[in-house]
């Protein structure tokens, strides 16, 4: 953790160590006194917790609020709103009521007039020991249901993709709030000092519908922004184009000399030392990142397991390579990996926004998602990484039980949809909450997405009410003033 200081002059090293020590010990001592005081008053839960960020090492690992069940997170984010009715939320009533109007249903939904109820577009069958009904659209993921905790009763605050993806990713429908990954890395730093703490991997077909706001730092320091790269697109500016390694090395040497001399004439300023350290971190990233995307070192059976060698389906193979990249990042100790499946608005062609021809489009999307994502979870498990990694599968909202008038697709439905968790700390084989008989509205154990995010933080040892950041007079949280941990999906 401190070996990046080796490059610094003695005075710089001393400076960083001293400042670090002072502030940490001050926090620690003050913390003890304060927490015991608060404990007596029963106020501990509401106390904000401000992570101590060492400016020279913004990604240094930091303590959670309480012992964490999960160390790292992979979020599989399906952009465009996956239909719960074609995947995880089996509604046999829809078969009976196929092509009949929904009694008392709305006349107009997001895109316009509502048509008749429509049966699930895939067959469902029971899976595993729990006998969970899952559709044939996703046969590989369906095999994992015994390990999954489903939450079938989620609700969103918006029925529009942008605000709803904002809400899922940041807890607010408006633009400009910090994303989940930013909050997590702000709180916990990362186990890896050679890689970014937070990586967002866009779908090979393009950026998700809500673009970079899904991994933006909002008003948190820029250090906690998600870094984007994928098996297709390397990190920008990792190397210089048009210079030779000799020139690069000479530049670095000269820069080191300049900065060392400057630091010597400006003793005591930690910001200067921090910038010097950041160049050292950058150099390490330059060394460690290129190898990450080089999949030639993966054995054939792994490539086949993910479908990365699928020559028939280039999008699937590319998504599979992203999944392997995600596993490698987790192996390296990266704290938060956001893996996108589904690109921008395209009439449902490039993402899960199945308004008009849902079945035809979902056949395409499911083939890309299913095998690679299932392989990622299996691979994490076989390497023992699932013991400490939380895997989240999510989408911004669900879809209506009826088709849109004159179409063969379903409109936006924020009132009842499914996301799930698996891996570290998650109770396996649970189906929590339910929608009504047609899958339109959550009716039991209703959970706004606040609760979902509060639960994710909880698994990481973070109290969503204490993880705050002051912005324009408000102690902001991921969960605004809401949020309850869904204890039913936690391993006891």
């Amino acid at each position, binding site marked *: 953790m401190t070996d990046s200081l080796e490059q610094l002059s003695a005075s710089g090293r001393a400076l960083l160590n001293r400042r670090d020590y002072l502030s940490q010990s001050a926090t620690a001592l003050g913390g003890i006194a304060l927490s015991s005081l608060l404990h007596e008053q029963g106020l501990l839960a509401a106390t904000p917790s401000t992570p101590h960020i060492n*400016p020279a090492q*913004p990604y240094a690992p930091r303590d959670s609020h309480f012992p964490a069940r999960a160390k790292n997170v992979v979020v599989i984010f399906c952009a465009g709103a996956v239909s719960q009715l074609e995947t995880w939320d089996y509604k046999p009533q829809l078969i009976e009521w196929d092509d009949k109007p929904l009694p008392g249903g709305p006349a*107009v*939904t*997001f*895109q316009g007039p509502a048509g008749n109820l429509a049966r699930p577009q895939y067959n469902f069958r029971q899976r595993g020991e729990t006998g969970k009904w899952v559709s044939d659209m996703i046969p590989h993921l369906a095999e994992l249901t015994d390990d999954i905790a489903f939450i079938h009763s989620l609700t969103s605050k*918006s*029925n*529009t*993709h*942008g605000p709803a993806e904002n809400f899922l990713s940041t807890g607010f*429908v*408006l*633009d*400009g709030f910090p994303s989940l990954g930013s909050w997590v890395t702000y709180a916990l730093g990362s186990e890896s000092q050679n890689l*970014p703490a937070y990586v967002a991997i*866009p779908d090979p077909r393009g*950026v998700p*519908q809500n*673009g*970079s*706001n899904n991994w*933006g730092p*909002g*008003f948190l*320091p*820029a250090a906690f922004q998600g870094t984007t790269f994928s098996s297709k697109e390397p*990190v*920008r*500016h*990792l190397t*210089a*184009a048009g210079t030779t390694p000799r*020139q*690069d090395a*000479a*530049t670095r*040497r*000269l*820069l080191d000399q*300049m*900065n060392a*001399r*400057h630091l010597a004439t400006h003793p*005591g300023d930690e*910001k*200067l030392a*921090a*910038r010097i350290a*950041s*160049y050292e*971190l*950058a150099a*390490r990233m330059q060394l460690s990142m290129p190898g990450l995307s080089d999949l030639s070192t993966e054995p054939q059976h792994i490539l086949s397991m993910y479908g990365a060698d699928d020559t028939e389906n280039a999008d699937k193979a590319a998504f599979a390579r992203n999944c392997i990249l995600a596993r490698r990042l987790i192996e390296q100790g990266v704290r938060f990996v956001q893996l996108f499946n589904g690109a*921008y*608005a395209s009439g449902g062609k490039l993402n899960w926004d199945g308004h008009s021809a849902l079945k035809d489009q979902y056949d395409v999307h499911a083939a890309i998602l299913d095998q690679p994502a299932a392989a990622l979870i299996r691979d994490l498990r076989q390497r023992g990484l699932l013991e400490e990694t939380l895997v989240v599968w999510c989408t911004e909202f669900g879809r209506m039980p009826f088709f849109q008038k004159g179409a063969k697709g379903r409109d936006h439905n924020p009132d009842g949809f499914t996301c799930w968790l698996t891996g570290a700390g998650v109770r396996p084989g649970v189906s929590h909450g339910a929608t009504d008989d047609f899958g339109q509205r959550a009716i039991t154990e209703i959970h706004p997405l606040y609760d979902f995010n509060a639960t994710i933080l909880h698994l990481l040892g973070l109290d969503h009410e204490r993880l705050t950041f002051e912005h*324009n*007079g*408000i*102690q902001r949280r991921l969960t605004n003033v809401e949020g309850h941990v869904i204890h039913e999906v936690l391993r006891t």
Partner: protein
Amino acid sequence: MFLTSRTILVAGWAIMISHCALLAAAESPDFVRDVRPILQKHCYSCHAAEKQKSGYRLDIKAAAFRGGELYGASLKPGDLAASPLFQFIADPNADLQMPPDGERLSTAEIETLKRWIEGGANWPDGVDLATLEDRTDHWSFHPVKRAELPSVGQTAWPRNEIDHFILSRLEAAGLEPSAETDRVSWLRRVYLNLIGLPPTPEQVAAFVDDTRPDAYARVVDELLQSPRYGERWAQHWLDVVRYADTHGFEVNTERPNAWPYRDYVIRALNNDTPYDRFIREQIVGDALGVDAATGFLITASVLLPGQIGKDEPSKRLARQDSIDEIVVNVGQTFLGLSVGCARCHDHKFDPISQRDYYAMQALVAGVEYEERVPDTPEVRAIREAAATDQKRLAVVDAELAQYVPLAGSGATRPMINARQNVDRFAPREAQRLKLTILATNNLEPCIDELEIFNTSGENIALASRGAKVTSSGDNVSPNRHELRFLNDGEYGNSRSWMSNEMGRGWVTVELAEPQMIQRVHWGRDRQGKFTDRLAIDYRLEVSSSDGSWHDVATAADREPYAPNAPKSQVTTLEGLTDEERSIAAPLLAERELLQKQIQAAEQLPRYFAGQFRTPDDIHLLSRGDPEQPKERAIPAVLSTFGTVNLTSEAGDRERRVALADWIANPGHPLTARVMVNRIWQGHFGVGLVETASDFGRSGMPASHPELHDWLADEFVQSGWSIKELHRRIVLSATYRQSSAYRETPAQQDADVRLLWRFPPRRLDAEILRDSMLATSGQLDLTMYGRGFDLFNQRGGLSGFTPVEHFTGQGLRRMIYAHKVRRERDAVFGAFDCPDAGQSTARRRESTTPLQALNLLNSGFTLDCAAALQSRVIREVGADPADQIRRAYQLVLNRDPVDEELADCLVVVQEHDLTVLCRALYNSNEALFLP
């Protein structure tokens, strides 16, 4: 009296409940002994000091009686039915059931409360365990108080008033101010700070040699006069108002005419527009002749119509969100208050009720996120000219109508059109004229007016001139279609004749006396609204007094009728006599010119500065939910801070004027304080109040309250001059201190809040980029207008590929970049550039390895390094030592010391100068304010 009899009645029932109750029944329950324990047990977890759900607390007498947000007074002594509190706990049919979950009150407990209320709800004064804090008693809510200058020990140190305040605090803390910084460091500091660009080596040399006593002041005046000043400081303002050139949210499409607001801010700062005026212009600039300024109101992200659900709740929510953004922006920008917190509930800390919040909404509820044509002198001139052109065009058209080719002359005549058709022929004597319609485009033909002109140009077909009309048969709609309307002199469908036969019919006009005629005008609808029922084949015949009929015109030589063809125009002089040509030709030319001018006037400039209309009816919303409206909100300002006289009927502009007047009032406790603090923050990195957009009770107190108030007062006294404020700050001894670290004061005040030195800080992203362009000789100083691109797209869905190499427009200052909301520039975004999602009152300075990668390896840096190399060689020639010196002077404003020169020489000789340039652009010295 009557209370007693009730108490007795109740007492009878209470016997059945418990012995305890029986005892108590003899007298009304005692609040402290009997009532409060019940409230503590069941209510205080949600309605006391810690939480006040629905804005209600029950642990303080005044608050308990006043009630919460939803139901008004909650306790009425002696009246159970009028005491919602009792209804909620006792009546299973009441709107609310309290407590909402957990144990219900026992029958005995309910009974006690019942008797207590019936007995007059006696709550003695002075028994409350908590005291209601006076939320209006907060430093920033009190009037600004100008303090005397504090006395100081080191009387020689202060250069102006600021220094007295700073020094007296330092002395009180036992700290010494730092020594004066050297002239070059000060110069570099003040250049980067005021204009965002470093001084040139020549400017450095001139200042170092300037021994005049006012040399410093001269520099400051020069910089404040520079247009570069506004370009730098506008950025601070744009951060706060979250300005961007795209609409935000997932579609994030271009907002093409947002930039006039950015330019307005630059101009306003450069002109030193008084701050109170600056406020007014941004709220109600449409009334002040400064249209671009109201772009302020609608800088937020907004959902475009296509992104909003077709269902009504979606539309209501979207509108609420967009009005909320205006209120939030006004509150935090000008007042430093988080007014938006009161959208769902009364503000948790500040004296802002939900009612206040919706009253504020009502002030701006007439604002739409739309473009409008500005009401500038230029636009007015263009519009006036266009109106004149339009009138003249009508005259020209009428005149030209006389010069269509003669019927039957062999020339092709214009196509029939619905407005008006002209048939010219050689003058001929006529007693009667007959128009026979042979075909229509559809239905029965309709003619709004038939005019016959004699050789003197008079219409003699008019009934008023004695002409009489007959027809083949009429479709009559009284007062709309009648035969008499054919020659009544009035145009339009509602004064027209209609035949009673499909596709045909005829009319004749009998003149009062035979006359020489030469022209006939007829049309379907000269007002241009109707194009159906149009005669597209016809014959015009004339009979002289001898009774014989002769054709004078038919449709045969007209251009064939085609309904979608462009409007038929007179474009030919064919078939005209020489004399006619000499008149018609210049008219034709004029016509063409007029049409061009009119077309150009339709392309008026548009600003994304709001459309203003009748305000929406705003209601209080339960929990901020548009589906749960409560009573109507009357437009008003925050009640703690003033009042305005507005009714619900007040128009949009009247409301915004009231809002602006209230904020820009010199007596407003927050307005000047908030702004002087923003300016101070821009100079020292942190404001006197650290929470620049929160002056409320959860914000930080000022580090130097007296100085803060003194500056606020002085600011108003100076006529709200921002430049005066800058001048005072940068010419102070405080600002002139060295930034060198010192151990002793650092131990006491590590964050330099007492300003024992000038606090060094990393330069903002814009300064970095602009400075690299300036020192490498590439900076394009073109001001204003549409922004240049940082990405390959100006907005949209499918992701943004950054521009890697910049040329042309891309070499302008970064404030002129097309600002894509939510996307940070690929190189400088990592240096804490806001993304314009939420307001940024202060940029948090962070240090990341991605900054290092960007600044080392980006095309931008390499291009600047190459350009700097070329510039240096061009300026000093081939000697490597001279080159190194020049590069140092340009980038760091100093010469290299001998060791540096030696280090650099080795590198430059082994590689080239770009290695040095690239290193210089990455060096800490270049990146920090000295």
